[in-house]
């Protein structure tokens, strides 16, 4: 894959973006006349903003190239630092530092420290982890930082950040005023670019950072310290995110969610423009996005139905870049050093048993037939049933990730977008085809049709990115989620602002069952989940399931045994989209109304994160999505009790809010998820699982061996330790080092 070819493809992408802008103008141009003056001004604004995007994106690229980690928390770090800046500079009750000093404190102190901490605590352990785990941990970090920012700087107060140079100061082009601070931004970004160039090409550390990209193993063989290099890259990357965040803040509504959705996507899109490798192309990418945004604002007005369409520009650029990039070569030759041990697949009868057990258990619990000694919870109230319903709806959406991410190892950040599309179809099919009533038909016999219609959408998202590495598939699902959430769903023709979906029923002609009570709807969801879980267990044992798992283990190996990797990815994506779409029908029915907040990126990411933390390869992981609901429910029950404020706080404000982020971050230590660990403890109890008992015994045996032999394996021995060990083992070794040996090797 040559640089020239990439450049051509990017030119095509850029051309396509520009052409769509022109077409949009031709069709929907605002009533402004085109004038040179306006073009100049829109360009200045675009370049200034774009240079900040470029700044942030460059930080992302520096981290990716030196450490191999694609950091979804990059924008989140910028957001957090921007709010720290607000706290120490703008907050009336804060320190009130002068802006210059505050900027220096945040960019040169807070951000680098944060970056180094992140590297030390999390990222270093993930270098050889599978892409899914890497992505989940960084996304978890993003969600965590954002939740933290939201908790500290709650939205009860309007905040703002002033530009470094007063807005009023500037000069005129014709009758329009261009403030100086925009130029200041351009200059700052330019200075940083020059600084980076010097750093990377003129200093030894910089050369070493580029060397890591080229040949990581060889870099450490030269004696360069990889830990220092990666720490430095994280510090640098965080500083750049912070600087960009602070400088962008004056131009937008300053709240964590808003700033994050901007910083996240612009940095990623610009970085993708440079294939997350080339710094010059990344800068171009940032400028292109900035220019497209400002010219869009200047010339095009799509009306109130497309209020948020400007937020889709960066995702669209990302999509186009993915489309235009030439096919990546499969990396053959090196087998991943952390091959997964073979996983036992659940047997069909076990699945059937589990499914039935789940339905029975849910029924008994909800009816209140179950007593725990003196504690009799009683029949579930309507609030209880509502909570159960929202948990099960999430569980159904979560199921769609099992084959895709859990088995095939492909990341999808857009489960809610697919669910929303299913909801849209459910609603519109009813309206368009004059099926009974307004709204959805309500009759579940049409459900498979929704699944069928959602599949092509999934295929569409995957088909361009499937040629590329797994990262790009994750990125295009992110772009897809943002485009759907900002352009498609808010449109009143897609989902009405306020709409009550009618209750569901199943009418097969000779028999009819209604699900119009809370209890029956809840039980319907339980049955759907049980059916879905069972279907997945059967699917996992089928040819498709085996193929998908084979693909995750090694794409190259799968390809050599005749699996068409691209096609397989597309099929599994379509399957997942179809499952999510069907889940969307229940989701929409459970909500009283659907609006843009229902599709918030974070809501979708929470589903993905919780599924990952539970262990995506297990269908039952879907039940973990009830996590937040359960914690909130418990907290509400406890609220009536006295003296448990701390517990309530812990459940409601800590676990329920920070849980998803923290659990995903926890994948650093437990990559295979909670269910796997639980199963390891639980399975040996089951009478028919002799294999599990044997495995446990074998593992314990392995542990015993390493405890003795492994004493010195992680650290160089001291002579005392060797003597102690030898005495312990009863070995007298004639070359046991004595105190006379000193560390290191004598020079020849």
């Amino acid at each position, binding site marked *: 894959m040559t640089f020239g070819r990439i450049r051509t493809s990017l030119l095509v992408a850029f051309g396509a973006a520009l052409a769509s802008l022109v077409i949009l103008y031709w069709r929907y141009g605002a009533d402004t006349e085109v004038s040179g003056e306006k073009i100049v001004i829109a360009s200045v604004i675009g370049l200034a903003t774009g240079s900040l995007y470029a700044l942030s994106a460059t930080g992302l690229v520096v981290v990716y190239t030196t450490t191999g980690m694609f950091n979804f928390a990059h924008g989140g770090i910028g957001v957090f630092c921007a709010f720290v800046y607000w706290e120490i500079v703008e907050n009336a009750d804060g320190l009130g530092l002068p802006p210059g000093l505050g900027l220096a404190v945040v960019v040169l102190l807070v951000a680098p420290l944060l970056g180094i901490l992140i590297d030390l605590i999390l990222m270093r352990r993930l270098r050889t982890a599978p892409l899914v785990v890497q992505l989940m941990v960084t996304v978890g970090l993003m969600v965590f930082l954002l939740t933290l920012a939201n908790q500290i700087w709650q939205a009860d107060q309007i905040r703002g950040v002033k530009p470094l140079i007063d807005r009023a100061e500037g000069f005129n082009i014709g009758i329009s005023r261009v403030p100086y601070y925009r130029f200041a931004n351009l200059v700052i970004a330019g200075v940083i670019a020059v600084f980076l160039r010097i750093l990377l090409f003129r200093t030894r550390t910089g*050369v070493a950072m580029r*060397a890591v990209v080229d*040949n990581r193993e060889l*870099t*450490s063989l030269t004696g360069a*310290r990889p830990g220092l290099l990666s720490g430095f890259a994280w510090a640098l990357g965080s500083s750049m995110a912070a600087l960009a965040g602070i400088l962008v803040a004056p131009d937008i509504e300053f709240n964590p969610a808003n700033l994050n959705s901007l910083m996240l996507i612009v940095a990623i899109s610009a970085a993708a423009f440079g294939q997350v490798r080339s710094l010059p192309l990344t800068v171009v990418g940032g400028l292109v996005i900035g220019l497209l945004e400002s010219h869009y604002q200047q010339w095009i007005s799509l009306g109130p139905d497309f209020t948020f369409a400007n937020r889709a520009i960066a995702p669209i650029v990302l999509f186009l870049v993915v489309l235009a990039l030439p096919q990546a070569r499969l990396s053959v030759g090196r087998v991943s050093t952390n*091959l997964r041990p073979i996983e036992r697949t659940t047997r069909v009868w076990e699945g059937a048993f589990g499914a039935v057990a789940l339905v029975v258990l849910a029924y008994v619990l909800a009816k209140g037939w179950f007593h725990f000694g003196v504690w009799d919870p009683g029949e579930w109230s309507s609030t209880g049933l509502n909570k159960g319903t929202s948990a099960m709806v999430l569980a159904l959406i979560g199921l769609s990730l099992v084959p895709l991410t859990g088995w095939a190892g492909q990341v999808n950040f857009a489960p809610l977008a697919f669910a929303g599309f299913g909801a849209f179809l459910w609603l519109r099919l009813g309206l368009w085809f004059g099926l009974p009533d307004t709204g959805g038909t309500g009759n579940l016999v049409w459900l498979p049709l929704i699944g069928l219609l959602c599949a092509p959408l999934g295929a569409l998202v995957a088909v361009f990115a499937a040629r590329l590495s797994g990262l790009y598939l994750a990125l295009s699902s992110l772009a897809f989620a943002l485009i759907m959430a900002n352009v498609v769903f808010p449109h009143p023709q897609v989902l009405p602002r306020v709409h009550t979906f009618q209750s569901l029923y199943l009418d097969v002609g000779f028999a009819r069952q209604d699900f119009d009570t809370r209890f029956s709807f809840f039980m319907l969801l339980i049955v759907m989940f049980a059916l879905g879980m069972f279907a997945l267990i059967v699917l996992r044992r089928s040819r498709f399931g085996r193929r998908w798992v084979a693909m995750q283990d090694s794409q190259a190996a799968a390809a050599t045994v005749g699996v068409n990797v691209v096609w397989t990815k597309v099929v599994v994506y379509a399957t997942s989209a179809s499952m999510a779409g069907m889940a969307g029908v229940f989701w929409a029915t459970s909500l009283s109304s659907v609006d843009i907040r229902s599709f918030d990126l974070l809501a979708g990411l929470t589903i993905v994160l919780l599924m990952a933390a539970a262990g995506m390869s297990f269908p039952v992981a879907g039940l973990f999505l009830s996590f937040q609901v359960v914690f909130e429910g418990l907290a509400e029950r406890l609220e009536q009790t006295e003296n448990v404020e701390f517990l309530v706080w812990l459940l409601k404000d800590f676990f329920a809010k920070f849980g998803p982020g923290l659990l995903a971050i926890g994948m650093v230590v437990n990559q295979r998820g909670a269910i796997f660990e639980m199963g390891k403890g639980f399975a040996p109890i089951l009478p028919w699982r002799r294999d599990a008992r044997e495995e446990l015994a074998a593992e314990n045996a392995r542990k015993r061996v390493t405890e003795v032999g492994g004493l010195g*394996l992680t650290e160089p021995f001291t002579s005392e330790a060797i003597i102690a060990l030898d005495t312990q083992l009863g070995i007298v070794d004639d070359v046991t080092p004595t105190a006379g040996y000193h560390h290191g090797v004598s020079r020849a």
Partner: protein
Amino acid sequence: MTPPLLELRGVRAGYGIIDVLHGVDLILEPGTVLALLGPNGAGKSTTLAVASGQIQPSGGQLLIGGREVNGAKPDALARAGVCLVPEGRGIFPNLTVAENVRMMTFSGTSYSDVSDRAYELFPRLGERRKQLAGTLSGGEQQMLAMARAMATNPALLMLDELSMGLAPIIVEELYGQVAQLAAGGLSILIVEQFAQTVLGVADSAAIMLHGRVTRTGPPAEIAEELTAAYLGIESGGPS
């Protein structure tokens, strides 16, 4: 008695769940050259990866200068004077020749010393300082890789299949340099597939088969046995 410069005692190691070395014993005496020979896939490169700290042994001991250094990081060993020129091209293709030379300073030698020595030994590299290393010819790339060994004055040098894919005349030139280093008293561990290449420089030789060192002895004897071993493998079917 000075301890061996490098010693592996019953070293076991592998990649993930795949075991490759099943108890390797190997001794390199100070100031000598040892050739480690064996067929493709025997585990020679893996042995060097263990000795340079790239792979942690899962069993056994790695001793350098008589000191157990199991678990030491490759960069720490490099700074302590262990130099591995890995299989393939041990260079950074997207850095210029000068930048590659600059990367040699991390083991503790100053830039001026390293560049003076490197360009003095290989004037051809001096002429191409500004060129990207990846655009050099195969022989020039191997010279650049060797330059690190020669310019940084290591205590232990390990060379992995230096001759691979190079014209005989260039191989001869490179081994000429190795001989000079050996004459200067440097301890060297050379890995090759074929004995002929190293017969001139090696003081002793060892055969590695299926993750074990099966024989050690004078190079000439080992060369004969090696041929037998290869034939044995071929007649013994795939393994």
